[in-house]
């Protein structure tokens, strides 16, 4: 098995691990991290797919991944800001609605800190 195939399989593994974590974790920070793990798995698979056969790799997938990394970083930053806002507004770092169906008032911030 060549190193390139190992990269591709590692990427597939990261996609699986990240998808599992995305579903089972409620905390928004964990969800954001999980999406990043999935995304990096996809990047690994694409970079591995750029090298199929002898010689230098195909530069187009590399450029795509470079673009993807910047977009992923931008989206992560915005997601983190939204998560902070959700916690400030509801006092909870998660999206789940409480069992009685009412959202908590914004005053109910248990830790008192803005960030």
């Amino acid at each position, binding site marked *: 098995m060549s190193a390139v195939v190992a990269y591709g399989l590692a990427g597939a593994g990261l996609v699986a691990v990240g998808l599992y974590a995305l579903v089972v974790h409620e905390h928004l920070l964990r969800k954001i991290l999980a999406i990043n793990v999935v995304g990096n798995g996809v990047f690994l698979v694409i970079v591995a797919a750029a090298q199929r056969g002898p010689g230098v790799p195909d530069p*187009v997938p590399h450029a795509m991944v470079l673009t993807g990394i910047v977009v992923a970083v931008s989206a992560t930053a915005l997601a983190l800001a939204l998560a902070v806002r959700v916690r400030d507004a509801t006092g909870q770092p998660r999206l789940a609605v409480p069992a009685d169906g009412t959202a908590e008032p914004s005053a109910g911030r248990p830790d008192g800190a803005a960030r």
Partner: protein
Amino acid sequence: MSRPEPVSAAVRSLAGLLALGLGTLVGWVVLTLPESTGLREAVAAQMDRSGVTHPVTAVLLNFRGYDTLLEVAVLLLALIGTWSLRLAPAERSPDRPGLVLRELVRLLVPLLVVIAGYLLWLGAHAPGGAFQAGALLAAAGVLLMLAEVRPLGRLSPAVLRLLAALGVAVFLAVALLVMVQGRLLEYPVAWAGGLILAIESAATVSIGLALAYLFLGDEPRVGSGRGRAG
């Protein structure tokens, strides 16, 4: 977390099966990919018209310049979106940053700026370019924020906003101006190298500023005394 995970065992096993299935599928695709050179030959055939000698930079800034233009715009949008959330400013520690941090910043920041310039220049013929350089500038900015040094603190918020938008503005201006002779983002061969360097220089400044301010979270304000960005 102190609270027990409310996700039930059924959901967990379903998610596990789903993840395992998807991972196996992607792994199988990786193992069965046919041998191919992809677009390597097509890129190589056009390299001497790209204005640069590194194929990834040629794809990023010339052949697929449209992707990169939108990517810089996405970064700016993320910054505008984050600022529009009006997060509370970060709590300032009552202690001053320690001596080690301050001295480390004094050593590292000039070095980071020089290496960023080097990577920007290197991008034309080797791995490097605007994004790598911008990331280093952002690292310098974050270090400055942590050390509570603010060399850009005296710039007005309007100037900082203009600098954050500079990359998109220059990229868009070049994209439109070359339409005089051709089509959107089709640089004249003789000018391609210079135009790419101009776009990348502007993008480096904007990327560094945007990433550093995304770290800070809140937007620069007039006279707040908290514009401690680098």
